């Protein structure tokens, strides 16, 4: 089921709500250049099961850093960060790593693939690493992912031979390889051919409602974008970053998705 847009916005930590998969409380997000300087301030945000978030903001507004923080790669400067209800910074390294594996992150602009590996090896790498198996043993899962992404023909190609639209799909397949419970996508439409938009929207919508690729499990999706318009049909939660401030948007408001708050 694709989420509806009539759900009210609620602040993080709402009493009675299910445990959030990702939660930031009063968090300030560190800048890439200076880890002590906040690029986004006052983030109160919770991602729960079945939610499809779209976070808008102009270029350099800090969307990517917010996603990296949400994925547990960078700690916030201030405030609390909870992953599946647990404070990541206080956990032992192995426990924290195991929790982080339950979150998939797709980077923008071609997905930061490994150019020395083939397409199949790129997708199989996290499976082989975490499940201690050979690529042959991981082949059925890799083949399944390749088939869903329409990449079977290119399995043994170097990703660098493919255009950015297909590289982005490889990155998506790689992020889904470990069957994450939350999928974070950083500007997935950046540099994509327009013809691929519909495929992405349909696929992500299916992920939200329980795709066979993930055993029918319903996952949460977060998309950071500078243009909200393509996402209006599938997303059910909206937020924006404006002047370094985090703002939750009422999904029922016309100004939220349609008004393209990232540029307002």
């Amino acid at each position: 089921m694709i989420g509806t847009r009539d759900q009210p916005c609620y602040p993080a930590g709402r009493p009675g709500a299910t445990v959030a998969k990702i939660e930031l409380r009063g968090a300030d997000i560190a800048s890439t250049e200076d880890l002590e300087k906040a690029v986004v301030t006052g983030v109160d945000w919770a991602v729960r099961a079945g939610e499809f978030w779209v976070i808008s903001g102009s270029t350099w507004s800090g969307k990517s850093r917010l996603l990296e923080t949400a994925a547990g790669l960078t700690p916030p400067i201030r405030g609390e960060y909870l992953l599946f209800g647990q404070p990541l910074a206080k956990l032992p390294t192995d426990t924290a790593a195991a929790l982080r594996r339950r979150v998939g992150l797709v980077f923008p602009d071609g997905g930061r693939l490994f150019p020395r590996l083939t397409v199949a090896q790129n997708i199989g790498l996290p499976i082989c690493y975490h499940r201690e198996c050979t690529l042959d043993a991981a082949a059925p899962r890799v083949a399944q992912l390749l088939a869903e992404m329409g990449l079977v023909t290119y399995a043994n190609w170097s990703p660098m031979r493919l255009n950015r639209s297909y590289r982005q799909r490889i990155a998506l397949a790689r992020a889904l390889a470990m069957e994450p419970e939350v999928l974070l996508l950083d500007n997935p439409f950046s540099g994509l051919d327009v013809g691929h938009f519909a495929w992405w929207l349909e696929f992500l919508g299916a992920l939200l409602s329980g795709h066979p690729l993930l055993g029918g499990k319903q996952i949460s999706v977060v998309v950071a974008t500078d243009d909200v318009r393509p996402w209006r049909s599938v997303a059910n939660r909206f937020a924006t970053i404006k002047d370094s401030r985090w703002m939750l948007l009422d999904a029922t408001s016309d100004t939220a998705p349609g008004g393209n708050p990232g540029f307002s």
Partner: protein
Amino acid sequence: MLEGVRKLVNLDTVLDSPLPRSYTNFVGRWLLNLVETVRQVGAFALISLGVMVTHWNRAKTVIHPLIANQIAWSGIGQLPMVTFLACALGFAVIGQTVALLSRVGAHDLIGVVMVTVVVRELGPIVTAGVVLLRVGTATVIELGTARASGEVEALEALGIDPVHYLVVPRMIGMATAVVCLSAYLIVGTLCSGGLFAFLQDVPLVPGEYLKQIVLALRWEDFVLLALKGVMFGLIIATVTCFHGLARPIQLTEVSVVTTHALLTSLILCVLVDAAFLVVYLLM
């Protein structure tokens, strides 16, 4: 006031300030930079060794092929160059030694000279030079490019420890390669030296030459040779990986970082070699 004093004694502030004009200050600045780099490389080496130990049995199906590839590239891939250098060294050392010793009638010292010069000094350091120039350079460029293009963050996002995946195989591979190539270079040099002596019609039969070498060798030579090889390999791997990975860089900085890595590796290898020389003198 106190803040100003803190800034004054902060090493980073000192190193970032404009280059002083006097030569002694320039040398001082250079030494401070070197010490700071060595400190950072040391910290990076400890982290990498820690990961190597704690992750020893983890992800073997991924890491073992990487180690094998690294050994093939750093070791087997360098055999032709090392063979060429072994021949050249054998001819040069024996040529000079024979000419010198013949004048004073001390042919029986050829074996001792060969062991001292080739086994203890030239073998490991020349091999380290080959691995540094041919593998170390490529490693810095490869890792620097990977870092600049965000592959390290991609590994972290997949829950893969970048040090385990990128550094550990290189450390094991290069240490193994330098030890094995040193042994190969030494054997090659001794053989080519013997052949050259024979061709020069020197009154030294191959059996006597071999006997002199065997008598000059001590068991400590084998231990120290292996230790030296491991140390050189680890230094080259750690320094090149450190410069490639340790801090965020832009693609345009890769060439500068490569030069720094080569220079730092070379200096550290020479310093370690000097430390081993002291050990030899104490033996």
